[in-house]
Structures are given as structure tokens and as C-alpha cells.
């Protein structure tokens, strides 16, 4: 199916001269220059509720920042499953609301849904959160992601100073590389404070399953973990349960200070407001967003929640020092010699994996000191 609404068809024809060379990149440029005069309509699509204190809220905060920009109309749709629904939602935004820039923010939207739709709408730009774009994918797709493992490393530093029992806990959704890297980073951060610290991990198996998240948090507290963090879509349940049990909390995705109060140490947050407003500025000024964008703390892709009152002066000092090291670039959480938690050597002495190392993107092992298993 091609465009149905008259406006999009006109726009399509208008930019078809630029498309004649069959470079969709030209289409994006054409759309960009046309939009310098007309208001830009941007669609944001979330897989869950946008007030989930987590993954989706982080993106919605980015959308809110875009909404405040002049000359931009923002469309938002929440609770869109990674099924044919997201394809319909994207087409609906294009056909009914003339959206020319769409941010489908869930990982699973990419393949096959964005990949199938993009060739049908060469003058629409699809910006996917997940970092999945490869050069053989259509050029009107972009993908971006942040090195948030570094945020979990800093969480670990704060946790290492706060923990008395030397046991910290992690409530994880699924044993996939991103989550595994966050678990490892959290422990390695804590071990940079005290090498005797261990981290108990519990996988719930689902991105959003409140009952299991509460059970896992309680189980971790029962086992003596006194600092808890997580990687699930909405950390609300974990934060409130842990704080209620008297454990300290390190946040994830968004700022959860309001949920854990004085028990909140810090948190690894996305900084989508900076990323999105930057991308919109690029389009408004007639430029093209790079197809593949990644960044960490230094590039303002991620940020840390303000340190809570429970963080000691020593903790604060090491936190800031480590943060400065990460900002300088080339920081390695994984330093050899390093074993995984079955005893096999994963990083030899003298070796290291810096934050941008592609090996981290397919990481499958939990490092020594993490109690738990991915299978």
C-alpha cells in the first residue's frame, strides 16, 4: 500500500524528484527541506504505558521535550504491542496525521515491522530505539541506543559504598545481552569499591510482570541484599517494595526518587530529551540524522539521577571520580583477569572491554561474584 491521504501523496510527488535517484537518503533530505517551512509532525510509539516510571516514561519525557519546541506537532500512542498493531499505528500516523518522522521506541518494533514499512514510505523517516540498523537496511530507517551499562556501573559504585551486608541484588527481566551487561556492570561497579561484594540476580522472565517483580525483590531482601536495582520495563514495583523492606534502591530507565525517597541512592537514566530535541533540530535545519547513533554519558544519551542523602561523602567522591573517568571516554568496566561465575576465564589478564566494545552486545556470561544463572 502506498499513501492514501491527499496530503501525503502531494508530498510524495513533491519529493519524488529527489527520490528519482532511488536514494531514500535524498527523500529524507527532501522531506527535511520541505519541513523547514511547514510544521513537522512527529509520532512517538510506546510499547507500554507512558507513565510507567521506566522505559516508556523515559521516552515520553523525551517526547514532552520535543512538544515544547516550536514548529513541531507531537503524536503519541501508548500500549502498542510488537505485532501487526505497530505497523498499523505507524501507517495510521502517516496516513491520517501526515507524520514524517516516527520514533517507534520498542526493541521488537524493528524486525519485521519497521523493516517492512519503510520501503513503502520513502519520504518518512523511522527512528528506532534499539541500535539495530545495519547498512543493508533501508536508508530512511535510523536506529539509536545508549551505553547505559556505564550507568549501572555507577549505580554499583554507589551501592558498594552503601551496602553493609556486602550483598546486593538485581531484579532482571530476561537473560539477553543488554540485561546481562547491566547485571555485570552493577556488580563490577560495586566491586571497584569492595571486591568481596556479591550480587544475587533473579530473572522474572517478562519485561513487565509486577507480581513476580515484587516476589523477586522480597526474596532478595530475605537473602540479606541491602541494595537493589533492576532491569525491567517499569521499576516502580521493585523500587517501592525494596524501599518498603528497608533496602537501598538504585534506579533504572527514569528517575525513581519519588518512589524510594531517602532510600534512593542514584539511578541510571536515559536522557532522551537531549537526544530527541537534537534530532528534531537536525531535521528542522534541513539536515539528515545519522542512520546509526550511539552514545553514553559524554554524549548525553544517558544521565544519572541526583545522588540521594544516603550516599556517604566517600561514596560521593568515588562516584564523581568514576563518572569523570567515564566522561573522558574509553572506560572499561570489564578488566582482565576476569572470570565468569562458572570459573571460566572471560577476559585475560591485561585485556579489557571498553564501553563501546561490540563484544558486549552479544555478552552471555555473568561475571564472577554474580549469584544466579542465565538458563
Amino acid at each position, binding site marked *: 500500500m502506498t499513501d492514501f491521504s491527499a496530503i501525503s501523496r502531494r508530498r510524495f510527488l513533491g519529493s519524488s524528484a529527489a527520490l528519482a535517484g532511488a536514494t531514500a537518503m535524498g527523500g529524507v533530505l527532501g522531506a527535511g527541506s520541505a519541513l523547514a517551512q511547514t510544521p513537522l509532525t512527529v509520532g512517538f510509539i510506546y510499547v507500554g504505558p507512558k507513565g510507567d516510571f521506566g522505559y516508556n516514561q523515559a521516552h515520553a519525557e523525551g517526547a514532552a521535550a520535543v512538544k515544547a519546541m516550536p514548529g513541531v506537532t507531537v503524536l503519541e500512542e501508548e500500549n502498542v504491542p510488537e*505485532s501487526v498493531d505497530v505497523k498499523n499505528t505507524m*501507517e495510521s500516523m502517516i496516513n491520517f496525521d501526515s507524520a514524517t518522522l516516527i520514533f517507534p521506541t520498542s526493541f521488537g518494533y524493528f524486525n519485521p515491522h519497521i523493516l517492512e514499512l519503510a520501503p513503502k514510505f520513502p519520504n518518512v523517516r523511522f527512528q528506532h530505539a534499539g541500535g539495530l540498523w545495519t547498512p543493508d537496511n533501508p536508508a530512511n530507517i535510523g536506529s539509536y541506543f545508549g551505553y547505559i551499562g556505564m550507568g549501572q556501573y555507577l549505580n554499583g559504585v554507589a551501592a558498594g559504598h552503601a551496602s553493609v551486608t556486602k550483598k546486593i541484588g538485581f531484579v532482571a527481566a530476561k537473560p539477553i545481552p543488554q540485561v546481562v551487561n547491566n547485571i555485570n556492570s552493577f556488580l563490577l561497579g560495586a566491586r571497584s569499591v569492595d571486591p568481596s561484594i556479591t550480587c544475587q540476580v533473579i530473572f522474572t522472565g517478562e519485561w513487565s510482570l509486577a507480581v513476580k517483580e515484587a516476589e523477586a525483590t522480597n526474596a532478595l531482601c530475605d537473602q540479606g541484599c541491602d541494595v537493589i536495582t533492576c532491569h525491567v520495563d517499569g521499576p516502580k514495583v521493585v523500587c517501592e517494595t525494596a524501599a518498603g523492606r528497608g533496602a537501598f534502591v538504585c534506579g533504572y530507565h527514569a528517575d525513581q526518587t519519588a518512589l524510594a525517597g531517602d532510600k534512593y541512592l542514584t539511578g541510571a537514566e536515559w536522557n532522551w530529551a537531549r537526544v530527541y530535541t537534537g534530532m528534531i533540530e537536525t531535521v528542522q535545519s534541513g539536515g539528515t540524522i545519522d542512520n546509526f547513533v550511539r552514545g553514553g554519558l559524554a554524549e548525553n544519551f544517558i544521565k544519572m539521577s541526583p545522588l540521594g542523602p544516603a550516599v556517604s561523602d566517600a561514596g560521593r567522591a568515588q562516584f564523581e571520580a568514576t563518572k569523570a573517568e567515564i566522561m573522558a571516554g574509553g572506560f572499561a568496566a570489564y578488566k582482565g583477569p576476569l572470570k565468569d561465575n562458572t570459573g571460566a576465564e572471560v577476559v585475560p589478564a591485561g585485556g579489557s572491554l571498553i564501553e563501546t566494545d561490540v563484544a558486549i552486545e552479544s555478552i552471555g556470561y555473568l561475571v564472577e561474584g554474580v549469584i544466579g544463572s542465565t538458563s
Partner: protein
Amino acid sequence: MANVEQPVAHPSGASTISVLMPRAEGLVIPFAALLAGSLAFSLFLLLVGKSPVTFFGLVWMAGFSTAFSWQNTLSQVAPLLFAALCVALPARLGLVVIGGEGAIVLGGLAAGVAGTQATGWPPAAGLGFMALCAMALGVGWIASIGALRIKRGVNETIASLLMAYIAIALFNHLVEGPFRDPASLNKPSTLPLTEGLRIGEMPLISAHWGVLVGILACIACWVLIERTTLGFAARIAGDNLRAAQVQGLPVGRLVVGFTALGGAFAGLAGFFEVAAVHGSANGSLIAGYGYTGILVAFLARHNPLAIIPVAILLGGFAASSGLIQRRMDLPDATILVFQGMIFVAILLSETVYGRFKIFTPAYWEVR
């Protein structure tokens, strides 16, 4: 109807109408319930300060007004048709099976795994093999619920619901473990299907072939239930189990057979989701079609023919959900509230059948 309260004594006209009116009951009451549910929802919208006119306008626009609207609507319909059959067929025997979701995800998994084995086969053979595997798993899953009911007296509603949870857990385990494509790092999936094993769109309308197969399946089921002795036996067993047993009808085999057929359709839903939509079996299959199918079947009063328009209607509602969120600034649950109100209205309307004299043949008989 008001002007025909005093029927004219035309023997021929009266006899036609005395045949038609009892049949009209099955149409008039659901439509009245639909209207009542919509009115109740309009009141709800007015209470929160939103315009019902805008709401229904957007439902029309997003669900049914343009070619794209129909594409959007129909894309939701195929799994709903199959999922509804999985509820409606056992329901004609008096069984409330609400766990079709489990058979859908397992059917999808079977199709995905079979597809990886069928790489390089001729497409027709490969797709047939995938569909067979999907149906076989669906049959096994749902028919076992029917068998448990007959052999052990296990409540089929609870069993099917709990087995759906088991199916989803099993699905997650298998997709994240033994059948995982090692290259699917952050979204565990089975190996992607080759291009030959994907099902494309039908000509003219931008919806995949599953919609047509689903519609044909509904028609075939209607014929089975309304026009065959087997269907007649099933309806008797559904109306009065003891009477059917006394008559010597093979109730046990009917129950297992009808649940098996329902399970086969649920498995097919999974097959089409994998082969036409996702291209591999992964967590996106757990999209709740099995549960929406329950709503479709009840709204259609378990009549397979009525499932077709009801599924299209609900597909249209789902298609308009996004536009309503964006244009009216209402949460995504709005459409669910609307569906819920209609569902309650339809369930309430079940109690009024046979209460209106104008639907009885006697009312129209010449006095």
C-alpha cells in the same frame, strides 16, 4: 413495529411474517444491545467532557472509511476469526473454553520450528507442513481439555485458562532455550523463515490470506453445526447433556472432536501470525488474540457466521484505538471500556430472549 400492532388478516402475509419474526429476534436483540452499549458509553464520554460524535466519527474514519482503514481493520481480523472459533465450537456443546491463547502461541511455535525444518522444500509443501504441525499442537492442547472434562470431570474453563499460562511459559522457555536462533540476541526468536515460507497479501486488499481462510473456516463450521447430523447431535448435547446421553449420542467423542477442531483453528491462527506477520516465533505472538476471541465468540452468540461481522467490527474498533488516543487525548484503554460496555450489554440481552411477544409465531397468527 408500532404500526403493525394490529396485524392485518392476510393469510399469506401473516404466515411469512410469522416465520420471519422469530428469526429476526436473533438479529434485533444483539443490535439493540449494541446500540444500548454505545449509548451507555456515550454517557460515559459526556461525563468526562468528550464528544461521542467525535468518538464514533473517528471509529468510522480509522476503521472503515478508507482503503487504509480497511487494511488496518482486516489485519486484526484473521487471528480473531480463528480464536473465536476455538471458543464458539466447544460452546455449542456447553463448554466454556477460554484458553485459546495457549494453543495460538504453541501453534505459532510449531509453525516456526517446522518452518526451519522445511527450508528448501517447495513452498506449498513447506507451508502445508507448518500448518499441519501448528494444527496438531493446537488439537493436542485444546482436545486434552475436552478429554479431561469428559474422562475426569475437570472444569474446562479453569483448565483451559491455567493451561494457557502453562503454554505461554513453555513457549517462552523453548524460544529462549532450545529453539532460539543464536543470532536473535535481545529478542529471542526461532530461526527466521525463508522468503518462500512467508505468506503474502491477497490481491486488491492489503490483508494476508489468513483472513480468507478464516472466513471460509467460519462458513464451514456454520454448515457443520447447522446442516449436518453431527452438528445437530452437538447442539442437542449442548442444550441438554443428559438427554443427549439418554438418546445414545456419543457425547464424549463429540466433546473431544469439537474441542479438537477448535484447537486446530487456534493453531492455525498461530501459523498465520508466524508465516504472514512475524516471520519467526517470538514473544510478539503473545498478543492476547485468544482473549479477544472470547469476546468475539460471545458477541456472535457462538454462531460461526456471526463471528465474521463481529470480528470485523472489533477489528475496526482496535484499528481506531490509536487515532482516538491521538486526536481525543484519551487513554488507550478507552476502546477496552467501550468493548466492555458492549460486552455487558450483550450478556444482559441474553436474558430477554423469548420475552417479547412480537417475536413469537403465535403473535402473528391469524386470530
